[in-house]
């Protein structure tokens, strides 16, 4: 443990109003701490610059999966393990279940939360591509009340989000419209478990007589944020899946993403694999 523990503070509010009052009074001072699976790694390495944390563990409002006729509402503290075990998510949102199953270790899946994965804002996070493809909304809460935002557009730059320092992410809502869509998810992380994505791809499309009526494509680890590839989607929407159209879509994707070289992989690899996964997804649609 390289952190100097006495320098850290962790508050554990017993209720939502107490939590909101604290961050309302001192906005930006208290950073939320959910499962802690990212924060504790940084803490251990002595690389966690923020010192004051607000544990969400006692906030019952942030837990549970609730299903209505037209949406599934996931509390921000829903763990990866809970996601994988949920029958409706398994049936209608398989990409999210796969993402949860392929995130970290079993221990990480037991502690790590969906809300934490969103606001930690890693461009390599595994569940956000699935959330983008499912057209999720996020619910933010502050002392002033609630507001809903589309998840697409929530991330505005590297580690930048449309969330105010006095707000907490309370829930994620998935509209139940994906059932008739063909769905595809693939995480490329070199080893089969406990990997961080080099490229992560989620796609869903609605086909009609061999034509792509609607399509959503999202990728992780190829840009400063997890990216919804809207230009690539537009290039495919309304078209049939032909070799020419696939090649054209791959060209659009290459211009839409911005992969980099880092210690995990290379920009060239990420670009090529992202294109290959797009191709695999489109080939799936044509079957």
């Amino acid at each position, binding site marked *: 443990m390289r952190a100097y523990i006495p320098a850290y503070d962790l508050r554990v509010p017993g209720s939502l109003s107490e939590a909101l009052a604290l961050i309302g009074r001192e906005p930006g001072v208290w950073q939320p701490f959910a499962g802690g699976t990212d924060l504790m790694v940084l803490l251990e390495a002595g690389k966690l610059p923020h010192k004051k944390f607000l544990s969400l563990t006692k906030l019952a409002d942030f837990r549970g999966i609730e299903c209505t006729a037209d949406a599934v509402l996931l509390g921000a503290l829903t763990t990866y393990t809970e996601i994988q075990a949920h029958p409706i998510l398994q049936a209608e949102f398989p990409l999210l279940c796969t993402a949860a199953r392929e995130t970290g270790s079993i221990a990480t899946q037991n502690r790590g939360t969906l809300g934490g994965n969103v606001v930690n804002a890693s461009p390599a996070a595994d569940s956000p591509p699935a959330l983008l493809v499912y057209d999720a909304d996020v619910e933010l809460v502050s002392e002033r009340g609630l507001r809903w935002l589309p998840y697409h557009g929530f991330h505005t730059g590297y580690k930048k989000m449309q969330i105010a320092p006095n707000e907490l992410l309370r829930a994620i809502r998935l509209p139940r419209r994906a059932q008739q869509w063909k769905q595809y998810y693939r995480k490329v992380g070199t080893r089969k*478990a406990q990997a961080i994505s080099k490229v992560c791809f989620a796609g869903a499309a609605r086909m009609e007589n061999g034509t792509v009526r609607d399509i959503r494509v999202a990728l992780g680890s190829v840009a400063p944020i997890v990216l919804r590839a809207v230009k690539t989607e537009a290039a495919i929407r309304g078209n049939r899946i032909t070799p020419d159209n696939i090649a054209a879509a791959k060209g659009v994707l290459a211009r839409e993403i911005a992969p980099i070289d880092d*210690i995990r992989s290379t920009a060239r690899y990420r670009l090529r694999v992202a294109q290959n996964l797009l191709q695999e997804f489109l080939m799936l649609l044509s079957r």
Partner: protein
Amino acid sequence: MEEKYFGHSVERKEGRGKVTGRAQYVDDLAFPDMIHGVTVRSSIARGRILGIRYGEGIPWNEFAIVTAKDIPGTNEISLILHDQPCLASEFINHPEEPVVLLAHPDKYLLEEARRAVHIDIEPLPAVFTIEDSLAKRTIIWGEDNVLKAYHVDKGDVDGAWATADVIVEGEYRTGAQEQLYIENQGMIAVANPADGVTVWGSLQCPYYVHKALVPIFGLPAEKIRVIQAETGGGFGGKEEYPSMIAAHAALLAWKSGKRVKIVYDRAEDMVATTKRHPSRTRHRTGVTRDGKLVAMDIDLVIDGGAYATLSAVVLSRATIHSAGPYVCPNVRIRSQAVATNAPPHGAFRGFGAPQSIFAVERHLDQVARAVNLAPEELRRRNFLHRDQTTATGQIIHEDVNFDGLLDRAFKESDYHAKRERFAKENPGATVKRGIGFSTFMHGAGFTGSGEVYLASVVELEATAEGCVRVLAASTEIGQGANTIFSQIAADALGISYDRIEVAQPDTGAVPNSGPTVASRTSMVVGNLVEKAALDLKKTLVESGLLCDACTEDEFVRACKRYIETRGPLRTRSQYEPPPGLHWDDTTYSGDAYGTYAWAVYVAEVAVDTLTYEARVTDFIAVQEIGKVIHPVLAAGQIEGGVAQAIGMALYENVAWREGRMANGQMTNYIMPTAADIPPIRVFFEEQPYPFGPHGAKGIGELPMDGPAPSILNAIENATGVCLREIPATPEVLMEAMAGKAGALV
């Protein structure tokens, strides 16, 4: 002698303690007055220290602070040479060079203090690659950057080119690799002028640590004591580096007057301790049209890092194994270990052989292609047999049946049928499958005159209760040494396994049976255990207290009576080389090893052409290792070594940034998980070696040698892409496949 235990999978001696958590590793040990120590390191690769500043906000008067000035003796980590300082005093030669040591009772405050020490360094030009080191534009070590060089000459290579129909050239590279033992390195020390120095730690070679501590403290040898704590894996990584940590802990203890514990966390262990030497090997091979090797010209270079450490001996093993298990009348090997400004590279299972065997076994597949022969056919025409000579001119006096090993490996792997099936199914498939193999050997024990020089000693001591203790410095590091020694001693004495104890390695109490390295413990030290045990029984028989065919009760009574009437019952055996072994260090020729293990490994792979990920889907390991002492432990050695070598071949890539490991975390240094490892099917052929216990040879390093070339040969079979470097990460494979298919988008 009856083999009641030899050849049987008895329960591990220390197994229960490990499984139940009773085993005491160094970080489990605590003493009332113990404080903690940390190391402050350089931040840049090469330079001159201008000054050390201690930042504000830290109660420095509470800390023990040690720099090079506080060393009572000589500032060196004594190994083969004496070039590596214990603490840098003026010059910095790699980015993890230790400069300042701190100790304090509060571990957290200690970390805060570590961050507050600023070492001002004037940078000097540094060298980071084999090529830059060889170019000698910047000299960073000695006169020419060369830590060690060897020449091996057999026949007349220059004269032989004319007799070759085809000449095939190739260059092959291997990367650094982390040992990743489960337990990080650590030491506890107590040290003062009156009592001397005692250290407890996680280590492979107690007497190496002992040898290193003597000059640092300038104390007589008997004032230094090194005790091995339970050790969670070594793989070579705890061969030499423990000397450094022991010295650091002891210096802090000396200064503070308290016991000091230093335990590295994973990040420090990964970046600062030794790794496998990166290598570059160039082959030029002359072959006749019918596939007979006529000349092998091999140029081998390994990257030793900043100091000499063990590079000379790693290079030696790499050199001797570089021509493979083949007969070639004309062989020239030129090998060098060169310095770079990275932390010193060191011992890692295989010790140079995996690097040079990778090169020769990849290269022979290219040679086979050049003369239109199947890779197995080329090898069959050149295999080494009894009475033939190796590259160093060693005449092989045992039966070597590579054809038999190859037949068995091909049968178990269904090699030919799969090769045919994959050729049919691969065109048009997204996931392409392939199968490949390698044939290789691994010399057991120290190279050349090494064992004679070591002159290892083992002692056995009987107690009045009729138990027998094995006294040796050989360490149990997870491989099963204690179990094997006990099996051998129990059979030699004709008593039960439970009556054998293996003493904790402690330089104050056990003789020097040599380091726990080089696949020597079972074969060399096991043989000494057997000799000492037979001698102990003979002593009882000759004293008239025991008949040759005794019961266990009679043995117990005899021990009791002997000790009562004559005093301690203790026997001692010392290494004697097998007759007829000759090695010439000046010409680098002769009997490089007493014997070799011989093996054929077959790997099957699946290569995803969308993600460029190669996965090993099946693995067959067939080897002749003399006699198997403990079937479960032996198979475990092979399975573990193969898994580690799969990591080396496909996954484990050290991301170097100016001599420093940038991915020193297990999240970003991709070691394969259990889910990435295929079934590993292990087969032993047994042919007793007359100078090992019951005929056993060495086994520990062998499985590290063969997998990487087998896997890359299989990838070539699957994709047609000829890779010449490892790790063959997806990024490497993509560039190679893209090169074949045309430019990237």
